[in-house]
């Protein structure tokens, strides 16, 4: 019963047209940005990281000298095509919902014997170093290019993750009383010149997913959603969330399920 209803929602959501371009066209500066964003997307340095990620995926590495080719991203061991578009999802082996990077890190730990602490020490890209999970998640994401986002809501823990993520999204605390919703809970707002999509609405929630992982023009580094959420919490004046923690998987479940039905365009380019 529940299952059928969920499918019903997915269908109704996918019928909503993608409104990003229309919503932005009103502002001439944003329209100019969008026009050149398309040119940038045609030849996106993200592809360099995608290639690196593919090499890493196939290479025998770590204390166990194993590749990641047996990693189960949710569609069975070794299936990469389309897996990203269906994450986050529930994984029985860990009895929790995992987002793409959380699952890749899990595979690096279990299959290759690499330690979590090692991966969590400096998990974000800098000018001198791109962490391996970032390249890997770029490769995995690219294999869902052009597919519909379909983060499932079948397992009870997937539905719990959605609701918990929603509560986390709206939780105000910290020095400035901010929550995620302070910036991303209303329509047509912006910080300085940066438009702020309202992630509580399906037609705008896609903008939390689209373009990530993204090649960031500032600094010229590749970043994943793990970085984006981390930097949101920094600006939210919160303490720091753990790398690939369940909190972040829950938040990603909330915004991704809201974006279900939209077509994912692959790794993107960001300001």
């Amino acid at each position: 019963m529940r299952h059928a209803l969920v499918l019903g929602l997915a269908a109704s959501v996918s019928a909503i047209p993608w409104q990003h371009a229309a919503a932005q066209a009103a502002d001439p500066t944003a329209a100019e940005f969008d026009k050149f964003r398309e040119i940038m997307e045609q030849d996106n340095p993200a592809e360099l990281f995608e290639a690196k990620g593919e090499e890493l995926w196939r290479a025998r590495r770590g204390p166990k000298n194993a590749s990641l080719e047996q990693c189960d991203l949710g569609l069975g061991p070794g299936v990469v095509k389309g897996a990203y578009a269906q994450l986050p999802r529930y994984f029985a082996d860990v009895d929790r919902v995992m987002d793409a990077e959380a699952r890749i890190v899990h595979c690096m730990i279990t299959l290759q014997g690499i330690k979590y602490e090692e991966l969590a020490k400096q998990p974000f890209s800098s000018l001198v170093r791109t962490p391996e999970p970032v390249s890997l998640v770029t490769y995995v994401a690219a294999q869902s290019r052009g597919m519909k986002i379909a983060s499932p809501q079948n397992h009870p823990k997937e539905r719990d993750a959605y609701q918990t993520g929603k509560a986390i999204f709206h939780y105000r605390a910290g020095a400035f009383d901010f929550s995620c919703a302070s910036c991303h809970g209303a329509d047509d707002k912006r910080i300085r010149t940066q438009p702020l999509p309202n992630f509580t609405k399906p037609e705008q929630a896609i903008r939390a997913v689209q373009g990530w992982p993204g090649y960031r023009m500032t600094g010229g580094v590749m970043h994943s959603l793990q970085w984006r959420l981390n930097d949101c919490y920094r600006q939210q004046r919160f303490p720091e969330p753990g790398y690939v923690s369940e909190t972040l998987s829950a938040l990603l479940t909330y915004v991704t399920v809201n974006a279900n039905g939209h077509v994912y365009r692959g790794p993107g380019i960001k300001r």
Partner: protein
Amino acid sequence: MADPMKIRATLQGDVADVRVLMAHPMETGQRKDAAGKIVPMHFIQTITAQLNGKTVFNADVSQAVSRNPVFAFKVKGAKPGDKLSITWQDNKGDKRTDEVVIGAAS
């Protein structure tokens, strides 16, 4: 060693549309690192493209080219199966050459 380039060469008639992505820091010599030390200049200076071994395009560039450079150019007289290679060299003498086979007209 430098990471591979990503080269795309697609035919429109007998003109090959060549687009290339290069992995390179393109340091301007004006940026400071975390310790406050100036990061020395490190940038691609020359780019050469060859079609079946014959030079068809080359460029001299400065550190003002963006990090992880992207270039596109168009080569005349190309046909499916031709080999297109691109070489860059930076100010430290590092070099990288990659090659693609031009596909059929799209």
